Every structure is written in structure tokens, then in C-alpha cells.
């Protein structure tokens, strides 16, 4: 049982109020779609939901089985894919997966890594440096890193940007899979992706 509670979140940068009074309650199996044009605070809101940015007011609580997760347990409960999150270019795909698994203190095996790479369509490319990957392949690897921990909360920012059709199909499958695992937050401006949503949050609505 997973529940994400956004309670009157506000955040200002410098003198500018970026996010004001955002509220939502998302439960297991549900998807929250966040829309709004560039600069409306989507990425900021996602950072707050992920727990790496503290809001000025309000809170973003992630509850699993009735217990609120502290930042330390969020490390293994949150998966996050966004264009401005980058993996280590000078490491191979394998080494990236290995590093993230270790810092998250996840049980790790060769088979699991292979399975993940296969799931995102990167089978056999594990030993290549990420620096040599195309942008689409890098996004796929980000999905692998996000899925490593079997996230109770999955955050996707512009999920299919940079991806080809097969990539988009993988994301589609993943979104379906997430419904059994927990909560999904999806930030997008692609009208095609609105169909995934159960709840909708339009950041421009408040003016």
C-alpha cells in the first residue's frame, strides 16, 4: 500500500514564486500527470516529490504500508528519470548500474543486471562506456537505474522524449507495470501521454 501526499507545496526561487499551494493524494496503482508549459515548475515539483528539494511550505510525504518514509529509506523506494539527470559518462553501463546499486545498498547480482539491461533493450551493451551511447540509449539506461530498486514511487519527466518507437513501447509497458508496484508521477506536455493519468495537475491553473 503506497500513498503519496502532496500537501500545499510552495517553493520560491529568489523573488519568484515557482510553485504555489500544490495539493494531491495519489494511491497505489494510480498515476499523477503533471502538466504545464516550460518554466511552470514541473521539474522543481518533481525534485520536491523525489525528496531532494525541500519546499518552502507544505510537504511531500511518501507513505508505505502506513509508515512515512524518511530520506534514508527513500533512497531505495524512489525511481526517477528526467532529462536533467545524467549518469556517469566515463563509466560503462554495467559500472553505472553497479555503482547505483551499491550506494543504495541493494542486493545485486549479475543476472539481475542482465535482466534489467534486457528489459530496457540494452542487452549486450553493458560493457560500453555511457559516453559512447546515443541519447536514446542513455535514457534507456536511466530507466534501468530507476528500476533497480523496484520503486514504490516512480517519477518520470518527459518519459518518451529522445526515445524511438521501441523505446516508447518499453516505457508504456513500464507504466503499466508500475500500477502493480506503487505510484507513478508523470510530467509531460505530450497530449498522447495524458491517457496514462488518473489524476491531473495543471501547474498553470493557479495562475
Amino acid at each position, binding site marked *: 500500500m503506497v500513498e503519496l501526499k502532496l500537501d*500545499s507545496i510552495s517553493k520560491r526561487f529568489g523573488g519568484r*514564486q515557482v510553485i504555489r499551494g500544490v*495539493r494531491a493524494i495519489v494511491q497505489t496503482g494510480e498515476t499523477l500527470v503533471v502538466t504545464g508549459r516550460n518554466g511552470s515548475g514541473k521539474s522543481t515539483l518533481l525534485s520536491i516529490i523525489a525528496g531532494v528539494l*525541500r519546499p518552502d511550505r507544505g510537504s511531500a510525504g511518501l507513505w508505505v504500508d502506513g509508515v512515512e518514509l524518511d530520506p534514508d529509506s527513500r533512497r531505495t523506494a524512489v525511481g526517477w528519470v528526467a532529462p536533467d539527470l545524467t549518469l556517469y559518462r566515463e563509466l560503462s553501463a554495467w559500472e553505472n548500474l553497479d555503482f547505483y546499486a551499491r550506494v543504495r545498498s541493494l542486493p545485486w547480482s549479475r543476472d539481475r543486471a542482465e535482466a534489467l539491461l534486457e528489459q530496457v533493450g540494452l542487452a549486450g551493451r553493458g560493457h560500453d562506456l555511457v559516453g559512447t551511447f546515443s541519447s536514446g540509449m542513455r535514457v534507456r539506461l536511466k530507466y534501468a537505474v530507476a528500476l533497480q530498486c523496484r520503486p514504490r514511487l516512480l517519477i518520470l519527466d518527459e518519459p518518451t522524449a529522445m526515445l524511438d518507437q521501441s523505446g516508447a513501447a518499453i516505457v508504456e509497458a513500464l507504466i503499466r507495470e508500475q*500500477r502493480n508496484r506503487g505510484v507513478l508521477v508523470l510530467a509531460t506536455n505530450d497530449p498522447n501521454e495524458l*491517457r496514462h493519468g*488518473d489524476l491531473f*495537475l*495543471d501547474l498553470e491553473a493557479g495562475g
Partner: protein
Amino acid sequence: MNRRGLAFWKLLQGPAMVGLTLLAYFWAKPLNNGFQVPEAARIIFWHVPMAMLGLLWFFVAGYHAVRFLFGRGSGDLRSDSRVSFACEVGLACTLLATFSGMIFAQVQWRTPWNWDPKQVSILVLIMIYVAYFGLRMSVDEPQLRARLTSAYAILGAVAAPLLMYVVPHLPQVQTLHPTQVLTGGLDSKWRLIWMGFTVVFLGVTAWLFELRVRLAALEARRSEAGDPEDQVVVEAVRRPSGGATTGAAG
């Protein structure tokens, strides 16, 4: 609700200052032990309290920085602005101590600056304050700025006493500073006047600090009054049909 104003301790400072100045010049006799110009010994009344207050205000800054980072109301930007006000007052004190010391050094050693260890220490203390404000200016986001500068203020408050009191007394470091006069050779008149000045200077700097805090509080209340943010609520809306229909019509 607001009964702070011109308190007794503030109004007492004027007469105290007048009295102490008169005592310093007409009651205390010039010192002959170790001073080129005996009259110049009166630097003690001014210079030594200023150097001590420079450090003291750095500790005050460190205290508010600890409160900001670890205290119960952590994240409260009022603590952060207190750190910066304390640093301002402390910087003013250290600058005054330095300039007065330079004047004294000109009289005593015929040069305003001779790289005496004490001069180096106070210069570095000034540099810590300057670095604090440099760091402050290079970050825009208030919370982040407050965290970075508070952490630095704590680092500085730990390093500063070492710089002021340990480094100049290392065995290999030789100072021309007439420290022995302070520790041993002051008669009771001098000691009394010196303490009086220390207390009054502490009062003046505390008053300055208090004014800065109140001014900031006033500005914060003003902007709060004229800024109806947070009235807005952006609420997530549920899809009318309710059920999830993934994969269906796009």
C-alpha cells in the same frame, strides 16, 4: 505588544562613554613600561576590546549558525540573517582594531605594518569575514545560501580562536606585541577603565546588532502584509470516468 525601545542600558551608554573618556585621559597616568610614547599606551582602552569583540561577534554568528542548521527552528531564515548581522558587527570591530593597531604600530615601531603574528591573525580573521560575505553574494537561493554560509560561519568560529590565540603563541613565532603589559603590568586604575570600555563597546555593538535585527523583522512583516501568495491552491483533479484505461484511445 512591542515594548522594546530605548531601554535603560542603551541610554546609559552616552554618559558612561563620556565618563570613561575623561577618566582615561585625566585619571589614568601614561605607562612607561615598554612604550616608546607613554601616552600611546591608551591604545589598550580601544584596541584590545575591539579585537576581543571581533572574535566575540564571530562566536555569536557561530551560535546563530548552529541554531540555523541544527536547532529546533532549523531552516528559519531569521537565524541566518542574525548570522550575517553578527558578522557585519564583528567585521567592523576587527577593522577598527586593525586600524587602531596600525596607528599604534606607527608610533611604537615606526611602521604601520610589520607582519607581526598578531597582525597576520587579525588579517586572516578579516579574511574569514570577507570570505563569508563573498560566499553570501555568490548564491541566490535564500535557503541554500543560508545553509552554505552558516556552515562556513561555524567553520570560521572554530578556526578563529585558534588563529587569534594559539598560532601567535607557538614557540617559534615571535611577537613584538606588548602582551605582557596586559597580563601583568596594568595597575588597578587602568584595569578598571579598560573593563569599563569593554562593557560599553559591547553595549554599543549589541545595540547596533539589535537595530539590524529589528529592521529586518520590520521589513519581513511589511512584505508579508503586502504579499498574498499561498492563497492559491492548485489541486489535482481526478479523471471524470475514474477507471484507468491505459492503452485505449490516445
